[in-house]
C-alpha cells in the first residue's frame, strides 16, 4: 500500500529496527524516537558513544539495553575524544567501515563537551557527532544549558528571571570548523532526518548532526505534542532544516509552505508561558534575523 495524498511516503522508511521497546524514556520522548530513526538512516555496522545524558538512562539499566548496536557509555565531556579513540582502534584493526557515532545532549555538546568536540572536528576525525538538543539539562531535572533558548524557564532560570541570553549557535560554531558535513534535523520530518543520516554515513571526516528533540517534561508540553512542537519549530524558522557541506554549500532541505509566526511555537509550551506579547515580538525579530542570515547563504550557494 502507499499513502495516497500524504506529504510523506512512508514506504521509503527503512524497516530495520535498532531501538527496542521497553526503553526507559519518558512518555512522548522525542530523543528515543530520534535514535530509532537515526539508526535507520545509518544502518550497520555502527557503534555508538553516549555520554552522560538522558540516553544514559533510556536504553535501560544493567543488564538491559534497548539498543541493537554496540554502545559505549562515556563520561559526560568526552564524546568527541572517545569517538576519536574508537575510530583509531578500528582503523588499526582494519575495520574502517564501522561508522562511529556520538550521541550527546545539548549540555554534553554546547557546554561541557564542546572542547573535545571542537578538537575532534578540528582534526576532522572520521566520526559522526549527533547532538540531540532538548535545550536544557533534562536528565538532571531541567537546568539551563548553553542550548536553552532565550526566554525559557528552567529550574535554574526561574520564571522571575528566565534565560536572558539567546541560544548558543552551535551550528555556526561547527560550520566555523569547516567540517565536511553539518545538518539540522528533527524527528518531525523523519524522511529528511533519515536522508541526512544516510548522507552523513557516506561522507568521510567529522560530520555533525544537530537534532531538535522535544522534551515534553522540560518544555512543558503535553506528551502527545512532541512531534507537533518540533514541527512548529521548523515551520516558524526557529529550527530551520538545512545542511552544509564543507562550510560552503548551504541547502535548506525543508522549506515550509508557509512560515508560521513564532508565537504559535512559543505559546504551545509552558516554558515560555510567562513571555509577554512584547517579548514574543522581539523573539520573532530575533528568529527572523537569524533566518535571514542563513537564507542569504542558502541563496548564494543555491
Amino acid at each position, binding site marked *: 500500500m502507499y499513502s495516497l495524498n500524504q*506529504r510523506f511516503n*512512508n514506504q521509503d522508511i527503512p524497516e530495520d529496527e535498532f531501538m527496542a521497546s*521497553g526503553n526507559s524514556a519518558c512518555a*512522548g520522548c522525542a530523543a528515543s524516537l530520534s535514535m530509532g530513526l537515526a539508526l535507520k538512516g545509518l544502518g550497520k555496522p555502527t557503534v555508538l558513544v553516549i555520554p552522560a545524558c538522558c540516553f544514559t538512562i533510556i536504553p535501560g539499566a544493567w*543488564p538491559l539495553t534497548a539498543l541493537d548496536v554496540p554502545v559505549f557509555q562515556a563520561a559526560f565531556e568526552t564524546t568527541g575524544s572517545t569517538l576519536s579513540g574508537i575510530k583509531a582502534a578500528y582503523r588499526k584493526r582494519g575495520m574502517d567501515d564501522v561508522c562511529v557515532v556520538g550521541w550527546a545532549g545539548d549540555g554534553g555538546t554546547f557546554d561541557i563537551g564542546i572542547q573535545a568536540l571542537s578538537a575532534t572536528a578540528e582534526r576532522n576525525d572520521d566520526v559522526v557527532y549527533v547532538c540531540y538538543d532538548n535545550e536544557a539539562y533534562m536528565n538532571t531535572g531541567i537546568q539551563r544549558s548553553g542550548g536553552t533558548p532565550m526566554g525559557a524557564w528552567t529550574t535554574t532560570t526561574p520564571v522571575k528571571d528566565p534565560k536572558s541570553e539567546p541560544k548558543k549557535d552551535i551550528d555556526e560554531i561547527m560550520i566555523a570548523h569547516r567540517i565536511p558535513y553539518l545538518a539540522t534535523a528533527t524527528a518531525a520530518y523523519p524522511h529528511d532526518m533519515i536522508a541526512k543520516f544516510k548522507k552523513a554515513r557516506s561522507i568521510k571526516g567529522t560530520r555533525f548532526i544537530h537534532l531538535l528533540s522535544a522534551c515534553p517534561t522540560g518544555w512543558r508540553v503535553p506528551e502527545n505534542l512532541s512531534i507537533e512542537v518540533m514541527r512548529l519549530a521548523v515551520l516558524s524558522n526557529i529550527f530551520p532544516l538545512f545542511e552544509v557541506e564543507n562550510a560552503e554549500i548551504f541547502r535548506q532541505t525543508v522549506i515550509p509552505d508557509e512560515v508560521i509566526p513564532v508565537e504559535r511555537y512559543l505559546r504551545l509550551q509552558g516554558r515560555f508561558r510567562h513571555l509577554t506579547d512584547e517579548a514574543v515580538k522581539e523573539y520573532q525579530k530575533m528568529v527572523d534575523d537569524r533566518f535571514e542570515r542563513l537564507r542569504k547563504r542558502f541563496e548564494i550557494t543555491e
Partner: protein
Amino acid sequence: MKYTDRQVHVPLCSVSTTSSLVNKTGTWKSAQPLFIDRVSPCNQQCPAGEDITGYMYLVGQGRYEEAWRLIMEENPFPAIMGRVCFHTCEERCNRTEHDDAVSIHMVERFIGDYGLANSLRITVPGPERKERVAIVGAGPAGLTAAYHLRKMGNGVSIFDSNQKPGGMMRYGIPSYRLPKEVLDGEISRLDEMGVEFKIAVKVGKDVTWDSLDNEFEAVFMGIGAWEETSLGIEGLNKKGIYNALEFLEDINLGKEPKIGKRIAVIGGGNSAIDCARVSRRLGAEATIVYRRSEAEMPAHTEEIEMAREEGVRFLFLASPKAIYGEETVAGVKLEKMALGEMDDSGRRRPVPTGETFDIDCDGMITAIGEATRVGDLPPFTSHRGGVVEADRMGQTTHLRFFAGGDIIDIPHTVTHAIGSGKRAAVAIDRFLRGIENDKDSPDQFTWGESGTINLAWLKGTSLFCRRNPSLEVVDYTDMNPFYFDCLPGVKTKRIPVDERLKGFQEVSEPFSEEEVISEARRCFNCGSCTECGNCCIFCPENSIKRDPDGYGYVADMDFCKGCGICVNECPRGAMTMKLME
C-alpha cells in the same frame, strides 16, 4: 570469599546484553491509543450510503474495477449518481477547510462510466427462496430496492406503469444532464441480474394492490411524485401553459411541445431550472419567476449558475396573480413580494405587498412542486396528503408493504430515493427471514439526518471498517492537516454555451484519467486508516507494528506508554486515546 557475602555472576564490567523487551513499560500508561474507523463527513451524510473515502482510496491507486464494485455494494447507479446527485458530500468535505473540496461526483461519474464502458457486471445466483417481492415503480427507489433484494437472494418482480423504467430519471431529468444511454446502461444490469420487469402495468388499474398483497410476500412501493402542484389561479388552461412534468416528459419522449418564444417559468426548484434551460434549448427566452429571493431558491446553486450562463433570466420576489391572454397565454400579472419571518423550512417567508406589475410572455411553465397522486396509493396504507407513513426503514402501517422515494417524507432527490430503496431492501429481507427488529437491527446503523445506511459497514466488510467502527464523524480539527499538501481541486469543465443551446448534449465534460486520479488522491480518507504508517514511525516506543493478520496496525500494550503521539500524528483521525480504568 573474603570480600562478599553473596555469590555473583556478573561480567567484569557493566555490559548489557539483555534486550529491554523484558521491561514492560506498558504499565506506565493511563490512557491508550485505539485504532478506530470513524465516519467521514461525506460518508456520514451520503443519502445513498456510499463509501466515498473507500473508493477514493482505490481510484487513487488506479484500482477502478474495485472502486466500481465498492460503489455497487451500495448503489447500483454510479454513472447516474455522478451526474445527477446534488453531491452535498462535497459541501461537507473536510478538504474545503484546507483548499477545495474533492470533486467527488466527477470521480464517481468516471467510475460509473468505466463500469459501463467495460461492461462490468454484478453476477448473482438464482433466487434462494420461493417467496417473491413485488416492487411497484421503477424509479430509483424501486430499482434500488429490487437490486439489493436480488443480491440478497430474493426473487423480485418490478411493475411500472410507464413504457420504460427509470421514473423521474427518465421522464423528468433532461438528457443534457443525464444521457439516456447512461440511464439505459445502468438499468439494464438489473435485467441481467434476473429482476423481472413488468412494464406498462399500472398497479391499482391493471393489477390490484390486493392481488399483489396476496401473491407476494412483500411489496415495495416507490411510485414517486407525479402530480404537479397547481398554482391555484385562473386561466391555467390557456394554450402555451404547461406544467413542468408534462413539459419535461414530452421533451424526454422526444416530442416538441408547442410553446412560445418568451417563456415564464414559475417556481424556484430544480424542475423550474430544468424547464427554463430546456426552453433555452428550444430557442425561447426564459424567465424564472420566483416569489422569494435567490438565497431561498431550493434549486442547486450549480444549476442556477448554469441556467444563468445559458441566458435564463430571473425575476425574484414576484408571485403570479393572473394570466393574460385569450386562447394563448400573453402575459402574467405578478404581485411584488417582500421577505418576512423565517418559515418552517428555515427560509424567509414571502409576504405579499399588494403592489402588482405585468410581464409579457407567450408561454408559461408551472414548476412549483410535485406530489404523489393520492389516488394511486393503495387504500390500506395510511398517508398524509400523499406522504406515506413509514418507519425509518420504510415499513408502512400495512406491515407487508414498504415504501421509499418521493412518496415518503424524505427530500425528493434520486440519491435519497436510492438510500430509501436500500433501507427498505434490508428491512424486507429481514422481514422475509423473520428477523425481529431488536437492538442489533439495522436502523441502529443508519446515520445522520438522511438515515444513511452502508451495507458494508453493517456487515463489517467495508474497506476501512476493520476494527472498532465508530459512528463518530471526523471533522477537520480531528485531522492532522500538516500531512496534506495544499492542492487546488480540478474544476469541472462545461461545453460552450452556444454548443449547449444547440441541443441536448451533456453539459459537463468528464474528467480525464489523470484528473480523476489526482482528485481521488486529494481525498483525506477522513477517519480511515490507509496504512500510511505514521503511527508506527512516530511511536517512540517502537510499539506499533503492522497487523500481521490483516489490515492496519496494532499497538503492543506491553510497551505503549500512552503518550498519544500516534493519535496526534494520524493524518486522518483514525485513532483516538482511551482513558484506562
